[in-house]
């Protein structure tokens, strides 16, 4: 449901993130320029460049003016300059973003679908052996941190069996095109996507199963049975469809978790997305990159939540009448 309040929440969220990235370096003791760029970068800078940066970010003026300068730079797409990558931060991030979108999008879709189907089947057989086994199995899996699952997959399929690639998103210098390129990308995706699906299946599964159990008691389920509908139709068209709704409202929240998961999984598999970029930025103390990634990730997650809000009334007609 797209209400004014959720829009306000998104604006506040983004402002808070902006304020954080703005205030943090400026409240550190010492030269703010050093805090923004890190001391190693500062050594390489010429005095003219330093003066220009002070001028551009109004660093010699009041905090309020500095904030104005900071925001206006941002809206022109200037996220700063990365001294490690020797490129503007914006370009560095845009080069990595597609890989993360691919990884996160694919895992989110697959784990949601799998979680819904397993949840429906499990809830339908509530209390019986398949349900109990699945529930215990998925709940235990839920305790395994995504980076540990990733490492295990890497050791088993990458190192010991040697059937899947160990790192990266592409075979370097392979010169593949067309179908070969597509297959190569897919082969590199298998392990990271599997790790993310295994780590994030539980949320969708548990929620679908719980809703399914409540939905099965609804009078319209009795009606469906009385009409003599097939089991599959009862299970999926009547109970299943209604059990999916809470899952979709939660997708926004899970998106945040999958992005966090992608951070770890990308690091494990050296997958060249934003997560691995964050790791490199931590290693090389590339502060502008860290700030840029935080801003872009926040923006993407908020935008996706906004989309879910827009889509929701289409899936649940009751919401349209509720307001």
């Amino acid at each position, binding site marked *: 449901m797209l209400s004014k309040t959720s829009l306000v929440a998104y604006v506040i969220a983004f402002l808070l*993130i902006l304020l954080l990235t703005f205030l943090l370096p400026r409240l550190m003791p010492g030269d703010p320029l050093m805090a923004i760029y890190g001391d190693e970068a500062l050594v390489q800078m010429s005095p003219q460049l330093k003066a220009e940066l002070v001028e551009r970010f109004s660093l010699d003026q009041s905090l309020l003016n500095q904030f104005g300068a900071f925001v206006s730079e941002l809206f022109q797409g200037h996220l700063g300059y990365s001294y490690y990558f020797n490129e503007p931060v914006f370009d560095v991030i845009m080069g990595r973003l597609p890989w993360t979108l691919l990884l996160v999008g694919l895992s989110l879709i697959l784990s949601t679908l799998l979680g819904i189907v397993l949840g429906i089947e499990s809830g339908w057989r509530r209390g019986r052996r398949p349900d109990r086994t699945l529930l215990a199995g998925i709940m235990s899996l839920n305790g395994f941190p995504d980076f540990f699952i990733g490492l295990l997959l890497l050791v088993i399929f990458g190192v010991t069996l040697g059937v899947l690639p160990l790192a990266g998103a592409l075979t370097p210098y392979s010169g593949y095109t067309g179908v070969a390129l597509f297959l190569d990308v897919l082969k590199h995706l298998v392990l990271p996507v599997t790790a993310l699906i295994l780590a994030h299946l539980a949320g969708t599964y548990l929620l679908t199963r719980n809703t399914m159990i409540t939905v099965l008691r609804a009078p319209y389920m009795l009606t469906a049975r009385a009409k003599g509908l097939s089991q599959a139709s009862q299970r999926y068209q009547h109970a299943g469809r209604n059990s999916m709704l809470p899952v979709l409202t939660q997708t926004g929240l899970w998106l945040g978790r999958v992005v966090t998961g992608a951070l770890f999984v990308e690091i494990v598999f050296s997958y060249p997305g934003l997560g691995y970029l964050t790791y490199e930025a931590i290693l090389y103390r590339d502060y502008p990159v860290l700030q840029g990634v935080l801003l872009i*990730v926040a923006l993407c997650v908020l935008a996706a939540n906004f989309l879910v809000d827009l889509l929701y009334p289409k899936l649940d007609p009751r919401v349209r009448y509720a307001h």
Partner: protein
Amino acid sequence: MHIDVKREVTGSASGRFGMAALGVIVILAVFAPFIAGYDPTAQTPFALEPPSRAHLLGTNHVGQDVWSQLVYGARVSLLVGFSVACLSTLLSALLGSSAALIGGLYDKVVMRVVDAFITVPAIFIMILVAAYLGSSLWVLVILLSLLGWQAGARIVRAQALSLKEENHVLAARCFGAGNRYLILRHILPDLGPILLVEFIFSMRRAIFMQAGLAFIGIGDPGTVSWGMMMNEAREFIFLNAWLWWLLPAGLILSLTIVAITFIGHSLEPAMDPRLGGEVVA
């Protein structure tokens, strides 16, 4: 809402398993000096040794005893988990119940902040803040608490809103009870079970996050933690060493998280009567 916590937890097989497993980890943490056998930070020239009678799980790349590191790691995880759970549950309880009782603009502001924080992945904020403020254990605890109370506050608020309309609360208000008195004497005690579940799940999240951050190299390098062990072991997956170094660290971390999850879930049927009468494996 009144539930018998002890009966709910010990009444299900998964609850009992959770309590037993967590009990073992707590014993490891408390009696670490007696169980470990070695100083987990002491470096020796005997690097990457396979398990032997002297070193149960062998040694790592700088000759530290892996078993001792595993035992001492329990301290860090439980300490962080417990402290963060205390702090963030306290924040959830105070902010959630006060928002429900005071209402008006205060309620709106609190809830919008909650909405704002819930969507953005906290880990990126943690990484940025830790890059500037350093990552000693206590900075981590405070950061994790500040970023962890929001979801709980929303649940507490919803519950407090319905408690607010209960007769005994209305009666107390008629006798002139103020908001502070109502929160402390009537609302918080009745929120007990919800706060307990919130406590359990924030502990779980804190342990997970601390391990994850240590895994990517954010954390006090002087304290031995499971996440840090996995970070170090990651470089050596091409050797057999991962079997007794990476695997135990990952498994004990997972065991801790699974145990806490099972305890939490064993309380859920009692919290949500709609799922009642359910056989949870």
